[in-house]
């Protein structure tokens, strides 16, 4: 049995608790959150041992592993404490807000030979795994372009009071939505070397961006585009799609299906004829022992637990792998800041300080606000 502690009982955290607790190879020892109204209920009604002090939980409980699902800004220090105590760590995405922190934590986890994983659950969705498999097989030829998109209805008005709307806490569509899409790009098409043409705008938010667009550039000359908008009500929930173009065809994958177009048959995928092949989630999905909201959430926890049992350090979504997404995020921030500063000086307005509504209007109408 793997003895697990958990910190952070927000939306993802609670869902993780349910999945972890249901895992047959896990003993959920204790959970920790500062929301005492919630921990009270879990303690009284679910018989869960609850803490409000993270350090106390680490000091008092004998744990093998920790699951971290706190606001992003807190990840680095909590992950560090857990690693220093010799715990295997599963951390929610994004891994860290500062690449330097991430590099240190990768070193620490690897030097201590601890299993480490980040919650990029899309890598456990059958359709995306199929896309990655086909691209890596070489079936669609040399990749020359990739496009990753994510849209959904998170911020739909100018108000909102959670950490997701606070820049300093790791809020904003870049950290929330875009890093998923970036990680999928890394997973399926490889990590870009640089970014350009960054647009990070608020649609309704004052403090953070609600949309992110940029170009991705690869060392071999291939290109990509990222298109993210979490203020799009026409989507019922987050919808993420990736398309990859190669010299022998293209692939488009979302959570439901993987559409493949091959110009010519390829020996690495003998089952596919030239033209269209559609693979659906119903064929591609692996059964899980417990289902909540999607197989991928259970599958990633199961992967973490199995890797701990087998002391396997090179699994999916390691800190090292997730740090690649953080690196791209930091390139977007750096490029965006440089571009934003020059645009602001030319146009004479300050994107961050201007009220969001007015900002959009000013941008679209070309006037200064």
């Amino acid at each position, binding site marked *: 049995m793997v003895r697990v502690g958990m910190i952070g009982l927000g939306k993802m955290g*609670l869902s993780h608790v349910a999945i972890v607790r249901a895992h047959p190879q896990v003993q959920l020892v204790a959970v920790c959150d500062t929301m005492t109204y919630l921990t009270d209920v879990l303690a009284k009604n*679910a018989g869960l041992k609850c803490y409000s002090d993270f350090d106390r939980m680490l000091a008092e409980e004998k744990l093998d592993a920790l699951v971290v699902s706190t606001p992003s800004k807190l990840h680095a220090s909590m992950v560090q404490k857990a690693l220093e105590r010799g715990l295997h760590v599963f951390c929610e995405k994004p891994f860290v807000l500062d690449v330097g922190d991430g590099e240190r934590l990768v070193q620490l986890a690897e030097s201590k030979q601890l299993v480490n994983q980040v919650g990029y659950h899309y890598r456990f969705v059958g359709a995306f795994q199929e896309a990655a498999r086909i691209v890596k097989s070489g079936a669609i030829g040399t990749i020359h372009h990739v496009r990753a998109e994510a849209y959904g209805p998170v911020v739909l008005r100018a108000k909102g009071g*959670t950490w997701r709307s606070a820049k300093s806490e790791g809020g904003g569509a870049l950290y929330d939505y875009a890093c998923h899409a970036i990680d999928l790009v890394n997973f399926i098409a490889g990590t870009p070397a640089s970014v350009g043409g960054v647009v990070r705008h608020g649609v309704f938010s004052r403090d953070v961006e609600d949309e992110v667009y940029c170009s991705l550039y690869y060392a071999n000359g291939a290109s990509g585009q990222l298109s993210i908008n979490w203020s799009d009500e026409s989507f019922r929930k987050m*919808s993420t799609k990736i398309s990859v173009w190669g010299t022998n065809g293209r692939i488009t994958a979302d959570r439901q299906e993987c559409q493949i177009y091959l110009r010519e048959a390829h020996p690495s995928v003998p089952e596919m004829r030239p033209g269209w092949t559609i693979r659906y989630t119903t064929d591609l999905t692996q059964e899980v022992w417990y289902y909540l909201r999607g197989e991928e959430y259970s599958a990633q926890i199961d992967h973490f637990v199995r890797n701990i049992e087998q002391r396997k350090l090179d699994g999916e979504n390691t800190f090292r792998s997730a740090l690649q997404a953080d690196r791209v995020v930091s390139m977007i921030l750096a490029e965006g800041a440089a571009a934003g500063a020059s645009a602001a000086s030319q146009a004479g307005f300050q994107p961050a300080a201007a009220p969001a509504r007015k900002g959009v209007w000013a941008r679209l109408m070309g006037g200064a606000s």
Partner: protein
Amino acid sequence: MDRVLFGDNQFFGVNHMSEEKARAQQMRFQDLGAVLDVLDAAYQEGVRTFMCTTHDRVAEICDYFRANQQKYPDYQFYPCMPYAHKYANAVTEHGMLEALRRFLPDDGAIGAMLKGGVALANKDVEAIMQLLIDAEMKMFHGLRTPVIFIQNVITDLLLGLGLNDCFRIFHDHVRNRYGAEPGFITMNVPRLLDVLDGLGIDNPIVCANINKIGFRMCGGIELYEKTIATRRFRPVAMSVLASGAISPREAIDYVCRQPRIESIVFGASSRGNIRQTKQLIDELTRSKMEATA
């Protein structure tokens, strides 16, 4: 329960196979008239039970059936609560506590208590759940709701967390306040039955994916078949076509051959498909009954 229940995924852009298809359905059904036409067609084909999420738009459907009770004298709803995205989006936007407060009555003592940050006692959890159930049930006022379901995302969250008391609270409130039979939708049938048995909830209505390819049947198709054959509960089969991955006859034949499945819920967008599926269920149910007689 009726043998055939009509589901609502097609009306709200839920499709497990294709986002494009889901969007096309959303476009088609954004007019209430298009939804009502399909429900009317289903009624003409003998399907008089609508098993539906407590989506905001269902309120408009309820208004129609309330106003047309002569035309649909035996029509009934099986509400499935809550529409989880409504809560999930509110939690993302406002945080958990504020989101909860927004779904409770404005002037209630519970809301004030949450505001004050007072620790919740067991009776408060019960009171909050009752208020949330009542809020979801408001739209069905004056309509027949003989079975009331709790949605799988909530069932399976509570089940995983170990908040087993909540199932008892839901069960008792649905029976006492609404004179209805509680139902539980889940993706984890064997585990849920263990918990309901432990709570002394006898012979519960449990709705779950039951299909020939084992799609989203946690624990595996063999365990499901054994569970259906041997345990005391009233199964309702959903996702029998696995979003179109199985041909209709093969899919329904499989479900009809499982013993003791009381009802089958399916969604369709055209009268032709509704008729075909309904006839298949009737035919294959009859042939199974003749075989066992």
